C-alpha cells in the first residue's frame, strides 16, 4: 500500500485515491504525420520498463483529478519524490546512490509502506526546454 504525496493537493493520501498511468516524460513525435513507423510505434508502445528508478505518471483520480509525476523504485517500491507536470525529477538512476534522504522518505529496507516527498531543490524542477 502506497501513501502518496499529491503535489497539487499538498497532502499525503492513500493509494486507493490514485491511478497509475505509465511511464512519465514520453515525448510525442513533433510531426506525427511524417514520423516513421519506428518513431510512432516507439512512442505508442515501447517502454523503458525500468527495474529500479522509474519515473511515472499518476492521476489523483478521486482527489484533484490532476496528473503528476513520481520517481519510484520499481523493485523495492520506495517512493523518492512526487512532482508536478512539467517539472523534472530530482532523483534519477544516476544520482539515487548518493541521494540525501529527504524527510519523510523511508529507507528501502523498512518494509512495504512507502511514502512520497517533494524535491527540496526548486532549481531541479525547471521546465525542460523542448
Amino acid at each position, binding site marked *: *500500500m502506497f501513501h502518496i504525496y499529491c503535489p497539487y493537493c499538498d497532502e499525503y493520501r492513500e493509494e486507493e485515491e490514485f491511478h497509475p498511468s505509465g511511464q512519465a516524460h514520453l515525448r510525442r513525435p513533433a510531426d506525427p504525420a511524417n514520423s516513421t513507423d*519506428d518513431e510512432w510505434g516507439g512512442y505508442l508502445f515501447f517502454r523503458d520498463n525500468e527495474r529500479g528508478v522509474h519515473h511515472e505518471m499518476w492521476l489523483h483520480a478521486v482527489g484533484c483529478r490532476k496528473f503528476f509525476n513520481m520517481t519510484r523504485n520499481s*523493485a523495492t517500491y520506495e517512493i523518492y519524490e512526487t512532482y508536478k507536470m512539467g517539472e523534472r525529477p530530482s532523483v534519477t538512476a544516476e544520482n539515487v546512490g548518493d541521494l540525501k534522504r529527504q524527510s519523510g522518505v523511508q529507507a528501502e529496507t523498512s518494509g512495504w509502506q512507502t511514502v512520497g516527498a517533494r524535491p527540496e531543490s526548486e532549481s531541479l524542477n525547471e521546465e525542460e526546454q523542448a
Partner: protein
Amino acid sequence: MKRYSGFGLVKHAMSHHENWERQWRNPTPKKQYDVIIVGGGGHGLATAYYLAKEHGITNVAVIEKGWLGGGNTARNTTIVRSNYLWDEAAAMFEHSMKLWEGLSQDLNYNVMFSQRGVLNLGHTLQDMRDIQRRVNANRLNGVDGEVLDAKGVQDIVPILDCSKNARYPVMGASWQPRGGVARHDAVAWGFARAADAMGVDLLQNTEVTGFKIRDGRVYGVHTNRGDIEAKTVGCVAAGNSGVLAKMAGFKLPLESHPLQALVSEPLKPVLDTVVMSNHVHGYVSQSDKGDLVIGAGIDGYVGYGQRGSYTTVEHTLQAIVEMFPIFSRVRMNRQWGGVVDTCPDASPIISATPVKGMFFNCGWGTGGFKATPGSGHIFAATLAKNEAHPIAAPFSIDRFNTGALVDEHGAAGVAH
C-alpha cells in the same frame, strides 16, 4: 530415465519410497552449447524439451537464476482455455490445448490436467454481445464453445448468485468445456525431467548478467558462474524480459506488473469448474486439495516486487463474495504475487530481435500458463530453423511498428 508407472509405484512402496531416482541431474555448465534458453519456467523448459524431441537438438542449456518453475509458472492460478477471439491467437492457444490433451502421456508425468470447463460470465448487454461474437469466432476456428443464459450458468454452478438481486446480475456466460486447470509445478517438473533425460542441461542458481554480442550477433552469455557460449539464445524470462533486452541493447513493448493470487483454507468439494468474470473482476476455481484458488487483476504500476497492493486483494475478494455469497466466511490461507510482462495488445511476443541469433518469447502477461506446451513447441521450431514457425509469425515484435496488433483485451481481460 526410469519410466513412471503404476507398477513402479507399488515396487517403490515396498522400500518406503526411499529409492526413487532424482528427476534430473544437477550438471556443471559446459563452455559451449548449441542453444541457450534463458529462463527455466514452463515456457523455457518446454522449449528445451521440444528442441530435443522434435528437432534432435540436445546440446542445450536452460539457465535459471532461481529454481525451476519458481517464477510465474508456479505462481499462477493454472487456468487453461483456448477461446480467444482472433484467428492468430485462437490458432496458437488451440495448438497448445491439443498438446495439453496428450501431455501427461507424452511426458510420462501426471500434470493433473483436468478439463472441468471454464465459464466467462457476462453481466451487461455489451458483455453478452462480446461473448456471442467470441464464441462464434471460436467455433469458426474449431474451438469448442457455447453461449449460456443465466439459467444455463446456474445449472452448472448452483452456488453462484444468479439472482436479479446481485449488484451486477449474471446474464449468461461463454462456456468452454475443454478448458480447465492443470498442476503448475508438475508441468515445469515434467518438462524438466523429460528434457534432462534427452541430454538438456538444467542450470539452476545461474543468473544471466549480460550477453556476448559481436557485430550485431550473439555468441554467448555472461553468468554468475562464468561465460557460456552459444550461437542461438532464446530468452524466456517473463517479467524480467525487459531487463534482459536492456542488457542486449534494445527495448520491448512491455511493462512488468505485479499480479496476485490467493488460496483459501481447504473446503469440501463445492465448485467443480472455473468461473471468471471480467466485469466484477475476479475468478475462482477449487483445487483437488480443496482450497479455493482466487485470482485478481494486475496492480497498475510497474513493479518487479513479487507482491502487490492490499487494495487489489480487497477488490478481488469483494468480487468473489459478490458472485459467491456462500464464500463470505471462508478464510484465506496464503497470498502472493508474480511479475507479469504485459503487452499493449494483450498478446505475446515470439520473435527474432535486432540482435542476430537472439530470440525472445515473452509478453504472456497474465495468461501464459495455458500456452506453455504450445509456446515451447513453436518457439523450439523457431529456434531450430532460425525462422518463425507459422503459428508464431503473427506475434513478432514488428507488429508494434506495422500496426498489425492482435488485440485480445476482450478475451484476456482479468481472465487468465
